[in-house]
C-alpha cells in the first residue's frame, strides 16, 4: 500500500527541492514587490503614457499563462535578444514579472480605495505628491493590501512548481525525478502536497492575524 520508505529513502532529494522552492519563492516575491511598487506607482501617476505603459505590463503578464511566460523567457528570449539565459535567471525573471503584475494591481486598487478626501486634506496642508503618498496614502492603503498580498504570495509559492518545466530542481522536479526511478508517484506527490500544506497553512493563519491587527490600528 502506502510505502513510506520511498520518502524516507529520498528525503535528501526532497529537502534539496524544498530549499530550491523556498529560495525561489522568497526572491521572486521580493523582486515582484519592487516591480509591483514601481508599476503600481506608474499606473497611479497622472502622466497618460506612463499609465498606459503600466496597464500594458499588467495585462500582459496577468493574462499570459505563467508556464508560457517561463518557457518563452527560457527558450525564445535568448534567441531574440541574442544572450544566454540560464534556467535560474529565466525562472527568476518569469516568476518575478508575473507576480509583480498582480502586486501592481493590488497596490493600485489599495491606493484607489483610500478616500479621496485624504488626498485633499494632505494637499491642502501643502504636502507634495511624494509626501502625500509616503505619509498619508500608502500607510492606509498597505493596511487594506495585507490580505490580498498574502493571498498572492501563497499562490506564488505554489506557482514556483512550474519551475520544474524548465528543469530547475525545485520540489516538484525532485518529486518527478524520485518517481521516475521508484515508480511510486503516489507516495512522492502526496509528500509534496503535505509539505506545501505544512508551510502554507500557518502562513495563511498568520496573514489573517496581521489583517486583524492591521484593521484594529
Amino acid at each position, binding site marked *: 500500500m502506502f510505502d513510506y520508505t520511498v520518502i524516507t529513502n529520498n528525503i535528501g532529494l526532497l529537502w534539496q527541492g524544498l530549499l530550491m522552492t523556498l529560495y525561489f519563492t522568497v526572491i521572486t516575491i521580493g523582486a515582484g514587490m519592487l516591480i509591483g511598487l514601481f508599476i503600481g506607482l506608474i499606473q497611479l501617476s497622472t502622466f497618460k503614457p506612463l499609465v498606459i505603459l503600466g496597464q500594458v505590463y499588467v495585462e500582459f503578464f496577468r493574462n499570459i499563462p505563467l508556464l508560457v511566460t517561463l518557457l518563452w523567457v527560457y527558450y525564445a528570449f535568448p534567441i531574440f535578444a541574442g544572450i544566454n539565459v540560464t534556467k535560474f535567471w529565466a525562472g527568476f525573471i518569469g516568476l518575478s514579472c508575473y507576480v509583480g503584475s498582480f502586486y501592481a494591481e493590488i497596490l493600485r486598487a489599495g491606493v484607489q480605495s483610500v*478616500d479621496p*478626501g*485624504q488626498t*485633499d*486634506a*494632505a*494637499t*491642502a*496642508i*501643502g*504636502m*507634495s*505628491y511624494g*509626501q502625500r503618498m509616503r*505619509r*498619508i496614502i500608502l*500607510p*492606509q492603503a498597505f*493596511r487594506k493590501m495585507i490580505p490580498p498580498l498574502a493571498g498572492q504570495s501563497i499562490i506564488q509559492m505554489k506557482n514556483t512548481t512550474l519551475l520544474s518545466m524548465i528543469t530547475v530542481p525545485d520540489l516538484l522536479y525532485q518529486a518527478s525525478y524520485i518517481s521516475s526511478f521508484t515508480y511510486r508517484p503516489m507516495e512522492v506527490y502526496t509528500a509534496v502536497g503535505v509539505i506545501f500544506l505544512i508551510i502554507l497553512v500557518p502562513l495563511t493563519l498568520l496573514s489573517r492575524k496581521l489583517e486583524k491587527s492591521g484593521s484594529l*490600528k
Partner: protein
Amino acid sequence: MSASDAIAREAGAVTDKSDKPVLRLDGICLKFGDKRVLNGIDLSVVEGEVVVLIGASGSGKTSLLRCINLLNVPTSGSIVIDDETLFDRQADGKGAQIPAQEVNRIRSKTGMVFQQFNLFPHMTALENVMEGPVIVKKEPKEQARQKALQLLDLMGLAQHVEKYPRQLSGGQQQRVAIARAMAMQPKVMLFDEPTSALDPELVGEVMKAMVELARSGMTMVIVTHELGFAFEVADRVVFLDQGLVAEQGPPAEVLLHPEHPRLKSFVGRFHESADLLRPFLEAREAEKAC
C-alpha cells in the same frame, strides 16, 4: 452670544481691519468637462475679514473654495494669496507657469476645513496637527508638538490629544481638523460646510470655535447654510448663483433686504423654516438703527 457683544466686536473690528487683501481672485472660471461651474468670479478678501459664501446646492460654492487652494484647477483666472501669485491663466491660455513646489508652498498659506473632516485615521489627534509643520515646514518635532498641544487646547481638546479620529465625536474631529489647518499658520482659513455632517447637538461646539477664531482676527472664507452664524459673524455675505457672484454685502443687507430674486427665495426659505429668527433679526435691525 448677546447682541451687544456682537456690536462691540463689530465696532472693534472696523479699526482692526486693514485694507490689505490677503486673497484676490480674478475672473475665476471652472469647467468640469463641458459643464461650466464657475463663470468668472472676482473676489477680494482683506486681512481679518470674515466672508460667508451662500448659494443653492450646485451653485459652485465648494468648487470656488477648492479653487482658492487649487484642489480644483480653474480653467482660467488668477489667484493671489498674500501678494504671491498661486495661479494665473488667461482665457487664451497665456499666463505664468508656477512650479509645483511653489504651488505647495503658497497653498499652505491657506488652511482648509472639510465637511467630512478628513482627518488622517492612522494618526492621533496630536499627530494630525503636527503632520503639516513637521513634514511640510520641517519644523523641529518638539516645537511642533508644543504648538500643536496649544492649538488643541484652544479647541478644547486637551483631554483628547492621544486619541485616534475614530475615538472622537464628529464635533471633536472637526475641531482637530481646525487645529490641523491652523498649525500651518495660514493667512486665510477656508471652511466648506464645516457643520453639515454633524449631529445637531454638536454644531454649537464647532461654531463656537469658529467664532473665537474670527474674533482673534483670522481671515476666513466660510461656506455654510447656518444663516444665523453668517448674520452674527460675517463681515460680508456673498451669494453665488450659477457660478457667479449674484449679490454681496454686509449680512444685514444681504440677508434681510435681498434684491436678487433667487436670493430672495433662498433667504426666504431659510427664514420660513426658522421663522423664529425673524423677530430676532428685526430686533437687531432696530437696535442698529438707534
